[in-house]
């Protein structure tokens, strides 16, 4: 089991190391604890959202609406705060709104049985509209000092958001691997009809996963708002869905479900973070940053696919 897991994430680990080495050689400021800390810090919301996305993709689904859910949640937290609600209550209410959005997605996907991509494409439009609508077009900013704790505070000498992320990652890695719920997700993603015949309630599991995804996006949104210090409803989290999806797939996930791990996804997020940070630190021309990022994504996924293809020729070769 352990060996299989190692094999599964091997390509992305190796590629991340190569890229890290390249950046370290190229720029003296890159390799160091404080820069690593900064990369982690910049991608906290990505890490948390990616946990949910991994489960969604494991089910064979897709969630395009995460960016809009983030915008709705962050905006409403901002609104609560501006009405003088206590930061902790506002944060909890915001997370509740994230869960609500997840329930909307989950309801249409699991019980009305509309394909994931259509529902989340639609809710992507809808939630974004709601976010900008409730914001009244103004920025959410000038948060009270107490709210800063969520994005910038420290606990036991560690950054609070990082701690939250680590705890969440640990819970979900454990949950996916050892809990019945986690095994069901793999079963459904691997072979839906078979899982159904085995007596698993596909709808219930799907609904739960989308609610969890909403919850995680809600948490990420609170951290996002607190960290960045201002929220613009029309653009917050605009490219989040694509970036997180890319991270999951770079981390070894399959868009067809059933394959992938949270650990792999986290490596995928880290990989994307390293690229973004490294390209700027290496003083690459701003015009080249996006082009290089795209190229490295394709390269990462190529290595991944080729490796997997070689390893599981018989098992998985037929998938596109």
């Amino acid at each position, binding site marked *: 089991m352990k060996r299989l897991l190692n094999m599964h994430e091997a390509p992305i680990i190796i590629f991340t190391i190569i890229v890290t080495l390249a950046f370290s050689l190229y720029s003296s400021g890159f390799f160091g604890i404080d820069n690593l800390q900064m990369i982690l810090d910049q991608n906290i919301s990505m890490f948390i959202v990616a946990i949910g996305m991994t489960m969604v993709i494991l089910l064979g689904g897709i969630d395009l609406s995460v960016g809009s859910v983030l915008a709705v949640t962050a905006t409403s937290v901002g609104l609560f705060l501006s009405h003088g609600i206590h930061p902790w209550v506002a944060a909890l209410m915001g997370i509740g709104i994230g869960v609500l959005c997840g329930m909307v997605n989950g309801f249409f996907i699991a019980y009305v049985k509309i394909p994931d991509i259509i529902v989340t494409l639609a809710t992507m439009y809808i939630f974004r509209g709601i976010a900008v609508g409730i914001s009244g077009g103004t920025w959410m900013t000038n948060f009270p000092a107490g709210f800063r704790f969520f994005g910038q505070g420290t606990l036991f000498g560690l950054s609070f958001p990082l701690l939250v992320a680590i705890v969440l990652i640990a819970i979900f890695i454990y949950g996916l691997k050892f809990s019945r719920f986690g095994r069901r997700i793999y079963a459904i993603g691997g072979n839906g009809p078979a899982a159904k015949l085995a007596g698993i309630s596909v709808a219930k599991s799907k609904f739960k996963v989308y609610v969890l995804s909403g919850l995680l996006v809600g948490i990420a949104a609170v951290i996002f708002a607190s960290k960045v210090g201002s929220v613009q409803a029309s653009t917050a989290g605009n490219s989040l869905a694509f970036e997180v999806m890319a991270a999951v797939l770079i981390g070894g996930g399959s868009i067809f479900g059933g394959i992938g791990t949270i650990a792999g996804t986290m490596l995928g997020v880290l990989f994307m973070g390293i690229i973004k940070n490294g390209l700027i630190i290496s003083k690459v021309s701003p015009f080249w940053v996006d082009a290089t990022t795209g190229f490295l*994504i394709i390269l990462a996924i190529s290595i991944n696919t080729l490796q997997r293809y070689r390893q599981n020729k018989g098992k998985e070769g037929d998938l596109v």
Partner: protein
Amino acid sequence: MNAWTSRLSLRSNTLLVQLIVLFFILVLFSILSPYFLSVSNFMNVFNQMVEIGLIAIPMTMIIISGAMDLSVGSMLAFSAVCMGVAFEQGLNIWICVAIGLIAGMLCGALNGYLIARHRMQAIVVTIGMLVMLRGLVYVINEGRPISGFPDGFYFLGQQYIGVVPFNAIVLMIMFLLAHFFMKKTRFSTYIYGIGNNEEVVRYSGISVVRVRFILFVLSGFFSALAGVFLVSRLASAEATSGTNIELDVITATLIGGTHIFGGRGSLAGTFVGLLIIVFLRNGLNLMGVSVLYQAVILGALLLLAVGNQKFNGA
């Protein structure tokens, strides 16, 4: 146009649903806005929908084959800017158009090579291409729009033949050709086959790799063509053109009844889906409805129009 779509609707119930939605939208806006129901407004809408429409043709085929291409907007911008840069080098404009089209096909070929030949996941590859090509666009022209094309070139996007815009005529011809192609040729059977059961197609001795490859090259070509028409219509090649166009294209395709998991769908449906979203947007614009509400309405319509289809095993 109505003749051939209604003939089809007898065969395809889904199409009937879409047509009724379209009809509702047309009637609704005719009542709500005095400016909606006029030849000039309709021609205006047709002129605007060409780019989305052109890309929707290969997108429908790709989705039917069970894949997806998210890089179309970036390919559009990349070809447009390649064309513009070539023009700045002093080449004849029609040679530049050819260069733009070739650039699009090369991007499509790269997509196709990775996805078809190396069996990589279409979504990831095309997300990567989306980021990379958009970046390359900035590398090529440093983000500055290119303009000053000769008047002859603007014919493509701005001229009207009688009352009908020239580019809309091109779109219609393309749709008719593609429709015929999807109904009558063996190649289209392969596309549907791959979408339904790729293995069976492969065991029938058909090169799945080749079919997929051709589809992605087509996607590149049509994106580039859309880029050419867009540059002609706007008289300017911009680095930002085509941003998020993939969402419009996919929305039109899905409203048009193409099955997201592949295997089912039709170009006639896509065409109706396209009309639905462009008329919806136009009507709401005429009424002065904020784009925020437009986004919410479009999302709700997507859920409603597509949500009532049966999705087996979904």
